[in-house]
């Protein structure tokens, strides 16, 4: 376990203060607060139905919170939509993979470059030198990203024909193509076998090394504890604990949330 991993700087990249979200009478999130530092790998765990994905959807602009404030790189996010969030520098993957299934893997990643490129209709029609140069740059970057996540040879395959693990990698490559400063991953290891998980972990570590902060929802406790610098635990829409993995594992409230009352041993 690498809970001794250094927490490099304590400049917050994302600050969440008192987020609340209701669906009718159901309180999905209440008073959720945390802050992620630049360069961190931050984990978000909790039992099923704890509100993890709701929180994710609020952060990425799909839902709007009923109360509370979100600040990204010091700026308060207001009237956000998913496309504006992506433009600001927060990219995401989906719990139930949402690739562009009938397009090639390479094109999936090329679409990720959309938000950082400019060619419009007239550029596309006239295809002048600037547009052609941009297209070449898009394709080149997409190739690099496919290589980076380890599926460089699969570029011409349809996204839906890739193996499950490769689809997860492709989603990460597509998200990285938007040049995010915060990459949020919704259960990236779901459905992966042990080998794939080891490779995923190495990939996430290298993404962090390249200067991208990561926020990860994950069910695999071992992966979270090994990978994350800090972990937030949600239960019934509230944060019940936050801290370094070793402390979290021993926290009685966390044990209770996962295993019910009466247990004292950490889940292993």
């Amino acid at each position: 376990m690498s809970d001794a991993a250094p927490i490099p700087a304590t400049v917050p990249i994302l600050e969440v203060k008192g987020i609340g979200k209701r669906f009718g009478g159901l309180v999905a999130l209440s008073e959720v607060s945390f802050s992620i530092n630049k360069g961190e790998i931050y984990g978000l765990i909790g039992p099923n139905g704890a509100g993890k994905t709701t929180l994710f959807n609020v952060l990425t602009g799909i839902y709007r919170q009923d109360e509370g404030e979100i600040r990204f790189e010091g700026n308060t996010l207001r009237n956000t939509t998913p496309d504006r969030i992506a433009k600001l520098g927060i990219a995401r993957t989906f719990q139930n993979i949402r690739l562009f299934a009938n397009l090639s893997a390479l094109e999936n990643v090329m679409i990720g470059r959309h938000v950082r490129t400019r060619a419009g209709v007239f550029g596309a029609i006239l295809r002048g030198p600037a547009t052609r140069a941009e297209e070449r740059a898009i394709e080149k970057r997409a190739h690099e990203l496919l290589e980076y996540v380890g599926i460089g040879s699969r570029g011409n395959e349809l996204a839906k024909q890739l193996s499950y693990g490769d689809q997860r990698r492709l989603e990460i490559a597509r998200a990285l193509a938007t040049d995010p400063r915060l990459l949020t991953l919704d259960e990236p290891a779901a459905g992966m076998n042990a080998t794939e998980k080891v490779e995923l972990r190495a990939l996430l570590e290298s993404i962090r090394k390249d200067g991208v902060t990561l926020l990860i929802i994950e069910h695999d406790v071992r992966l979270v504890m090994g990978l994350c610098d800090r972990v937030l635990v949600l239960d019934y829409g509230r944060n019940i604990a936050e801290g370094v993995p070793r402390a979290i594992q021993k926290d009685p409230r966390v044990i209770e949330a996962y295993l019910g009352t009466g247990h004292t041993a950490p889940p292993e």
Partner: protein
Amino acid sequence: MPDIAGALRRHPQARWIGLVLVAAALIALPLVLATIGTAWVRITNLAILFVMLSLGLNIVVGFAGLLDLGYIAFYAVGAYVYALLAGPHFNIHWPWWAILPIGAAVACLFGVLLGAPTLKLRGDYLAIVTLGFGEIVRIFLNNLSEPFNLTNGPKGLATIDPIKVAGIDFASTTRIGELAISGTIKYYYFLLAVLVLIIILNLRLQDSRIGRAWEAIREDELAARSMGINTRNMKLLAFAMGASFGGIAGGMFSSIQGFISPESFILTESVMVLSMVVLGGMGNIWGVVLGAILLSFVPEILRYTVGADVQGRIFGRSLIDPEVIRMLLFGLAMVVMMLFRPAGILPSAVRKRELAVPKNE
């Protein structure tokens, strides 16, 4: 299947030879058809108009995945703009090169008008709204004859100016020595030139940042938004671009026919264009071209063959009027096609790219 694309890449000169052959065939086509009957040249011209319409609708339906059942409305808008600006109704006679872009722009505006309120709709719901839109436009054309007579109502607009290029009138026959080039043939060449332009525009749009954004919306709208694509603007753009091509085709329809009325723009026409797109292969430009050509010609060919020809051979005489049987056979053919090739004749294929990372410039 042989790797034609790969072979062409290895032999670039083969590509040029093929292109020259196709061009020669297309240039010779009306002269050959004219020997069979001028009607066939006219049918070909209408087929080219339908290819243009299908390509326009393909942007909306095939690329962006937005089902549009009222597409013919944009054709109508283009046609009426042309008829009003080049005809006796208001006694305005502007040249075609001024009116066609205006028609495209007005159709584009209508595209945005249709697109804006339907941004949140998809699938069946969008189909119903667009269907209603198409009918609204037709009914307006039918009724805008009073208090101010804009469209002349169901009587339509007649004696619309033909296209004139460099003093050559497209309504009359020109003689070059022995060769008589009828107006219909002249229109064929004009339409062909515009069609080539439209196909090039479509190919470029599809293989661009914009085209990829449309395809992303078609595949998964939420994922597209999460990748930073402004889906609202991109959908409006798809409606606007598709409508513009419809408007251009409409303008040329006006000038060829010389007469238009709301009856030319009924729902059946929208359904026909959509069938061409679906049958050919949604999202595949060449498939859509093929679908439009087939659906334009097959009913006409059937008109001349399922009478005495086929029935005579089988039964010894003509039992059923070909007018009755040809649309039945046509419908049957479409059902069979869709059962055996549900993705169209030429399904949208994955675009393969060279996998080697391109060198730095």
